[in-house]
């Protein structure tokens, strides 16, 4: 009898083994992996485009296809729920890999979108924020002939470039710079070039508005000033000899040193190899030193130009304000904003060629 009582209790409690929430079956969810945002000036609404990869709908197809759902709303949550109306399955955003901002929306300001994204708990913080040249919707709705799905393609495009010349920028970094004092965010710009997607430059923000764009040629100068790099490359135009040299596998270290309250030195130590160095006579020490100096000077020039531009536009992607904040005890935001454009910022580049090559 006791055994019966016990086993019946156990059996009854098995009935309670149901979840308190609704179930989600992995085959029946629409996984949105890319989000693109645009601004519709006529209705003053955001246009959101969610891209989800389509797997396994046909066995023959080699290339992966994407489904792009576009909807229009004045808030981000509105866009998500509108996309739900168009997608056949339940929309999930947990696998988001990048967020794309159309150029127009970036110029107007991304703060609404950013706050909307931050409120979704299932989104990670290591995804890539990107600016799209033109409209994000156009880039996302195009069908590309890719080996991978479009979201994965863009993710690996950015990931592999971050290892090289592209300065690192994730959603967390963006938030950090957006909310923090004495710093401004930036993002890589991508564009739709015929059949594939390319990185075409960097876009710099003043708080939440895109104010300045550079091309790919200034990537290294910015990266050298901004963070340490491990495997960057640099194209040096040697005007004297009318030659173009490429410096490869660059390792660089940057350090900010405040000489006084109005003078900052950014010391960058760079080491790299020169490709195709045979004809340059680098085996002679004085030649090598000469070249090092020239490359250093050229880079310094490029860096000062960038810095001057930043100061002119009153933007601080190099986080100089934050560095001042941690150096000077009496730092305050208002005073800093007034003095920032007038501060003397000197890039000091020490270039060193490590020359050993496969061919002697």
């Amino acid at each position, binding site marked *: 009898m006791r055994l019966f009582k016990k086993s019946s209790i156990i059996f009854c409690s098995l009935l*309670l083994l149901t979840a*308190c*929430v*609704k179930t989600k079956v992995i085959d029946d969810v629409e996984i949105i992996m890319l989000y693109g945002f645009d601004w519709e000036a006529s209705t003053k609404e955001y246009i959101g485009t969610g891209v989800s990869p389509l797997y396994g709908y046909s066995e023959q197809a080699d290339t992966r296809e994407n489904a792009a759902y576009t909807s229009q709303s004045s808030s981000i949550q509105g866009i998500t729920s509108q996309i739900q109306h168009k997608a056949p399955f339940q929309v999930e955003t*947990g*696998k988001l890999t990048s967020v794309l901002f159309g150029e127009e929306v970036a110029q107007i300001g991304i703060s609404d979108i950013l706050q909307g994204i*931050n409120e979704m*708990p*299932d989104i*990670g*913080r*290591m995804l890539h924020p990107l600016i799209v040249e033109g409209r994000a919707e156009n880039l996302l709705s195009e069908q590309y002939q890719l080996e991978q799905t479009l979201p994965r393609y863009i993710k690996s495009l950015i990931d592999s470039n971050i290892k090289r010349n592209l300065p690192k920028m994730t959603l*967390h970094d963006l*938030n*950090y710079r957006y*909310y*923090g*004092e004495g710093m401004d965010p930036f993002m890589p710009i991508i564009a739709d070039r015929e059949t594939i997607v390319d990185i075409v430059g960097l876009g710099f923000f003043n708080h939440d508005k895109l104010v300045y764009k550079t091309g790919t040629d200034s990537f290294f100068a910015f990266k050298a000033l901004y963070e340490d790099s491990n495997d960057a490359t640099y194209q040096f135009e040697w005007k004297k000899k009318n030659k173009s040299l490429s410096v490869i596998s660059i390792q660089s270290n940057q350090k900010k040193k405040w000489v006084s309250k109005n003078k900052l030195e950014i010391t960058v130590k760079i080491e790299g190899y020169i490709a195709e160095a045979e004809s340059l006579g680098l085996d002679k020490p004085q030649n090598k030193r000469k070249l090092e100096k020239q490359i250093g000077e050229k880079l310094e020039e490029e860096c000062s130009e960038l810095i001057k531009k930043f100061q002119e536009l009153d933007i601080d992607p190099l986080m100089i304000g*934050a*560095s001042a904040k*941690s*150096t*000077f*005890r009496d730092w305050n935001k208002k005073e800093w904003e007034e003095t920032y454009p007038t501060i003397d910022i000197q890039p000091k580049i020490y270039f060193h060629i490590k020359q050993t090559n496969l061919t002697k």
Partner: protein
Amino acid sequence: MSSQKRKIDISQMVSPFLVLYILHGTQMGEGVLTFTRRIAKVAGYDAWIGILLTWLLTTIIIVIVWKIVPDGQDLIDIHHSIFGKRFGNLLSLLFGVHLLSLSFYVMRSYIEVIQVWYFQDLSIGWFSLFLYILILYLVLGGFRTVVGFIFFSFWIPLVLSFSILIAFQHGHMENLLPIMNTSYWNIVKSVEPMATGYLGIELILMFAPFIHKFHKGLKWAVSANGLTTLIYLLVALSNFVYFNQEQIQLLAWPSLHVWKIISFPLIERFEYVGISLHFIVIIATSCIYFWGSVQCYYRISKVSFRGISIFLAIIGFISMFLVKDYLMIEQLSNIISKIGFCLLFIYIPFLYILKLIKSGVTKSHETI
């Protein structure tokens, strides 16, 4: 006297070294997810100095607790001997309310985390019903069962706190500079929100007679406090280098946001693992407070232990529905943190002084 009837025999006691697990388990609750935001609000990023200060103060309080409690007695006996039976019981009653509300708060705020991060449509009723059944099961099993559960929960924050080290890799060390950029007074003020994370010391007053050779437990309690400090310091520093001061104020659970950077091929987001594992810690913390509260009422009344625990579980279950949203939880946590602060740093030293006076008076009486 009723205390004769309710004497604890050796089969209910635990070894003194288990105080390490019990105290650490009680201190490490839901607070570890949020305290960085609270202390940074008061003292900025110098608040980590506040953690060290709180550590010093709480260590002193622990020593005082050991001075107050003689072997084989608990807070109810002490209240009786100092304030007399009636007033003593009234104070014990209030103390029981404090313990019960802490037990409730830990659980309710954790349910909030689940609701925000996992399932928006989680039904609080069903979830807390099963939680209370579990807690009742543990508590009715006696003090040893509760301690057994805490022993398992002990390892989880210890392991999880290592995962948070990843923040240093992505962080900005210069956030901590310049050190001591805020006033001394602000750092002292940060002790108040920080003290919530050290609550659990007052519970020693309740379970003291359950510790075999109680006087030997002091060194374990002090080391538990040190371990707690170490984990808090690690979490605080990692949060501070990872977020800047403006950003951290906007995050409800900063530590969970740090976990967002960890990603494995199989598990896209680590915070989901972290939250689930933390559940065991939450149950343990909530359970020991619940036990303390039941024990408190059991000692001052004549009702059976089982009766009181079922009654309190029903009260806790009903209160789940009364706290409706995040704002109420924040309010509750502010109240609890203030009460806890007063309890630790004012009431316990006050008790000690009273006890000293009392023993002085009795001694002088004896000599006459």
